[in-house]
């Protein structure tokens, strides 16, 4: 029960003294830590970003190709292919911009504190 009681205390300790802890714990300690503290829940905005970019990557380019060849510019497949390639790059640049705006502080839980 002693380890069970330590959960909240240990979590607090990692928040302020994570730099002093060794980055790679010994395997037994790692397993113990994983059992006690399965890690913070993934924040919702990260999940939305993840699903948004996955969907955009899956259906964006190929959907634009079929949309443009069938409805917007029927008969011109090369234009549709160019639009699909441009669309893929738009998704890429959106991802780069979103990733650039991500906070990169040294403390691992800066996002949680904000």
């Amino acid at each position, binding site marked *: 029960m002693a380890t069970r009681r330590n959960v909240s205390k240990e979590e607090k300790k990692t928040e302020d003294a994570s730099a002093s802890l060794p980055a790679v714990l010994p395997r037994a300690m790692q397993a113990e830590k994983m059992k006690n503290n399965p890690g913070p829940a993934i924040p919702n905005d990260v999940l939305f970003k993840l699903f948004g970019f996955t969907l955009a*990557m899956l259906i964006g380019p190929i959907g634009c190709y079929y949309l443009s060849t069938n409805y917007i510019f029927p008969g011109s497949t090369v234009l549709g*292919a160019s639009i699909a390639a441009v669309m893929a790059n738009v998704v890429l640049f959106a991802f780069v911009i979103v990733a650039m705006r991500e906070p990169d502080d040294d403390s691992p839980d800066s996002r949680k504190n904000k």
Partner: protein
Amino acid sequence: MADHNPLTPAFAPFFGMAGIAFAMIGGCAGAAFGTAKSGIGISGIGIFRPELIMKSLIPVVMSGILGVYSLVVAVLIAGDMGPEKSYSLFQGFCHFGAGLTVGLTGLAAGYAIGNVGDSGVRAYMSQSRVYVGMVLILIFAEVLGLYGLIVALILNTKGGS
């Protein structure tokens, strides 16, 4: 064979089909190599600095775009072929060249993205200024696949019906 024509032999669609296969195989091999190699690096740094994972996913997205390029070319070539359409040998060679172009440039770009992504992400763990340089290098590597796509589109219009 009423419409037997030396310009449209029966084996001409073979080259178009080979172009489709080369486009998908080469491009997806490159994309898979890039994803796997940079994924190894991202998993490696994710242990130490989990807050960097989202920023480090860029090589994976770029590898995915290589797959999209080859998919687009394969869909284009497949749209030009059909059992009722007459298909000349020149069209077949054009489609073969288009598929080979986008497949092999995708392979090359995926190789570059994989290696740069792995090393760059590992360097980014300890030096955050590497990031902008890494993104630029990745974009230049990915533009190689874009060149292949452009040449493939030109070849496809040359062979267009």
